């Protein structure tokens, strides 16, 4: 300050954990209604555990993702988010395995739905964090969106089909 000249360090932009943490409230407010909607949909479709899983999948992208950004594997935000989504769904998956009563097919379909739909949601929420960061290029985001948004749609679509098939089998008593 004494020299009234910016040092090279002053001109550099970094993104330490403090800077990432202050963005969390903005992310939470921005996804407040979708989180509530996901919780309500989960509750109606599968009860409290599904409501909780749906809300956790979004909160992982808004709350945990900014904090864990440098330590998640891959450079693509979608892939980082997907990994995080799988990690936060693991407790739900273990709970499913512990409480499974039906056949192996039921359990496999439930797990496929759980580990495909919700990580894809976390991946999408994480992808939206690109705009909050000071090191992302427009060309890179465009490339990532073109590559991974269709993939997220496919994964969540396959997961939803698995969930529907599982529910049909359950209701009809087959397998």
């Amino acid at each position, binding site marked *: 300050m004494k020299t009234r000249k910016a040092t*090279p360090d002053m*001109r*550099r*932009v*970094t*993104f*330490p*954990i403090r800077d990432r943490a202050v963005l969390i409230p903005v992310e939470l407010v921005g996804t407040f209604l979708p989180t509530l909607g996901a919780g309500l949909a989960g509750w109606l479709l599968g009860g409290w555990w599904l409501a909780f899983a749906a809300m956790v999948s979004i909160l992982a992208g808004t709350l945990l993702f900014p904090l864990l*950004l*440098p330590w998640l594997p891959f*450079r*693509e*935000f979608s892939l980082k988010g997907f990994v995080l989504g799988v990690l936060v769904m693991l407790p739900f998956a273990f709970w499913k395995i512990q409480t499974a009563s039906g056949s192996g097919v039921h359990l496999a379909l439930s797990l496929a739905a759980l580990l495909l739909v919700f990580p894809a949601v976390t991946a999408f929420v994480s*992808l*939206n964090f*690109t*705009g*909050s*960061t*000071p*090191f*992302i*290029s*427009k*060309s*890179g*985001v*465009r*490339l*990532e*969106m073109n590559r991974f948004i269709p993939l997220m749609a496919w994964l969540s679509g396959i997961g939803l089909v698995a969930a529907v098939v599982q529910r049909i089998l359950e209701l009809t008593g087959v397998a």
Partner: protein
Amino acid sequence: MMETLTYLDVNSLVYDPDACINCGMCSMVCPHGAFEDGESAAILAHKERCMECGACMVNCPGHAIYVDSGVGCAAAMINAALRGQKEATCGGDCGCGGSSCCG
């Protein structure tokens, strides 16, 4: 701890060393140190760090640098695509896309 975060090695930065007058502005203004000072011309040492902010291009008197600068934000791009706008902008609630209310 200083964390050096790098995104995908994809950007539109083009540098022509022949047009460089070695003024040192690019290495000074780049927020990620993509350019470094050289003997007779600036050196594009870390192209992968470029975030397409456009500071180097704006500050280059020799017009030796081109970059397609813009908002690297997936949410803004999705909003722009949904609204049929060509260019993504921040704070798109007003839907102005850089005119009127955005001054």
